[in-house]
């Protein structure tokens, strides 16, 4: 590590071998820590914040997306393990989600490569974040505001309406998931896994913030196993995605990922501790606002006149 003093401040620069540029080490560990804090606080992987932050700070989009998948694995591992010890993981359900997720990830990584060659990767990533985060953010905000209002009126909010079934529960090929106390069709389970695998590998996000609402509202998985199962699924699927990115686009920067991991894992512990002082619906409301803010940021980048209409990219390195 080089120690250079610019204007009296200590700057530690670290050279990233795959991104091929040198970045301030404190900056990397810092954003890893900050995002880790938020992910510990809200129980999400934090990829949806980290990937954009890296892109805005000059890391090539491909390297940012691929390396963050590695970071998400680390950030979700400790959470998944502690939920597993408490019996909060439905392994049977997670397996279905992971297997279809890996199929989706194959598609996502292939689409990622095609789009990068066509020069439309940044566009699709911006659009994807805008639509996905906007949609989920609005839903979450609505739900948490409603819960907050009800609580103020003194209505007891039930976590789960056990006898309320929707059309999803009428589909064929039903499988019994013991831990989740569910007897449902595998079709919606596989579709959710497929979709999150595709989107997650394309956008460099774990997809926890889509998975949790999907499990709760679509499949009606009980609250005690939702977070654990979602985390276990994220770990397994992002691990597979990391390997896929490493093989196909060769843009996983292990040093970048490691710096982010160290910050992220430490930050997550403080975030989880801070989360104890907030109520569930308050947390969800705050997370919704955060998600919406990122969505709006991406939306603006598509609509506002860019600072520079020209951009460049390396298509291939001549031998």
């Amino acid at each position, binding site marked *: 590590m080089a120690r250079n003093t610019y204007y009296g401040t200590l700057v530690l620069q670290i050279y990233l071998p795959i991104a091929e540029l040198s970045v301030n080490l404190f900056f990397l560990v810092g954003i890893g820590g900050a995002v880790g804090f938020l992910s510990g606080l809200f129980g999400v992987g934090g990829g949806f914040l980290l990937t954009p932050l890296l892109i805005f700070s000059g890391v090539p989009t491909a390297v940012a997306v691929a390396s963050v998948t590695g970071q998400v694995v680390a950030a979700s591992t400790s959470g998944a*393990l*502690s939920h597993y010890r408490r019996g909060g993981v439905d392994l049977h359900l997670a397996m279905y989600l992971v297997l279809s997720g890996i199929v989706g990830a194959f598609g996502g990584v292939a689409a990622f490569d095609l789009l990068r060659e066509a020069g439309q990767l940044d566009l699709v990533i911006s659009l994807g974040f805008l639509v996905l985060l906007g949609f989920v953010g609005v839903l979450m905000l609505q739900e948490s505001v409603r819960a907050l209002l009800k609580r103020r009126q003194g209505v007891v909010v039930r976590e789960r309406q056990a006898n309320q079934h929707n059309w999803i529960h009428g589909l064929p090929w039903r499988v019994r998931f013991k831990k989740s106390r569910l007897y449902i069709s595998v079709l919606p389970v596989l579709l959710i896994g497929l979709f999150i695998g595709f989107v997650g590998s394309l956008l460099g996000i774990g997809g926890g913030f889509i998975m949790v609402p999907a499990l709760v509202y679509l499949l009606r998985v009980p609250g005690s196993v939702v977070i654990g199962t979602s985390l276990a699924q994220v770990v397994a699927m992002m691990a597979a995605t*990391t390997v*896929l990115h490493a*093989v196909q686009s060769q843009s*996983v920067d292990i040093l970048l*990922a490691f710096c982010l991991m160290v910050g992220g894992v430490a930050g997550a512990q403080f975030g989880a501790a801070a989360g104890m002082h907030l109520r569930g619906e308050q947390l969800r409301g705050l997370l919704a606002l955060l998600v919406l803010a990122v969505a709006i940021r991406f939306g603006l980048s598509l609509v506002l006149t860019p600072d520079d*209409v020209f951009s460049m990219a390396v298509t291939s390195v001549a031998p």
Partner: protein
Amino acid sequence: MIRFALAVFAIVCMVLPAGAERLFSSVSTETVQITSSFDGERLTFFGTIAPDAGAEQKFVEGPFHVVVVVVGPTQDRVARKKTNNFGVWLNTEQVEFKGFPSYFHVLASTRLRDITDVNTLTTNYILPESHAISPNPAGWWQTLNFGHELIRLMSEQDLFGVQENGVLFHSESFYSAQLTLPSNAPPGPYIAQTYVFKDGEIVARKSDGFAVRKIDFERFVALSATQYPLLYGLACVALALFTGWLGGVLFRR
């Protein structure tokens, strides 16, 4: 007889003009090593102008101008332009430049326009813009426009540049030039092409090579990522799982 001797003398004069110069030059570093602490490196190009071998004169007569052109490994690059389509900004136009230098810096002893004419500068690829006017299937107008923008983008990243006070003469014939290679300089073979100008003409030239290479850990990582991508990916996952687990163990109270 006298006429014949004069003719021979004239031919000799043409073949060996009065001021035939040659250039001795060198680079301070042959291999720029990229380590984890790589944050750019300063290189020095230096040389001396001497009478050519076989020339009769004992010393050279200036004034000379020296231009050092440092060119990095070539890549295929595209320049893309966003246009507004129904309110959304999309990349719609692009021009690909094959074999475009990934690094291009010109160091000169004075302003280029005072050294020689634009023709000499472009035909010898001394001006950055000379890369924007090379033949391209996109057509010359698009190539010129996008090439110009590409050079601007490269300059903003410090990968392209012209320093017209970059070469310093310490005597009539001894010069040195300093160049700071930025941390984002792409690894690969580099060439420093040095031109000596006198009265607007190139009187001597020489090229020196140097390499920018990743070494030790950086080299190991970059090689593993390209040669053993599957193992590399698995190693990344193992590292992530271990870090996550360790974090959980360390911070649990």
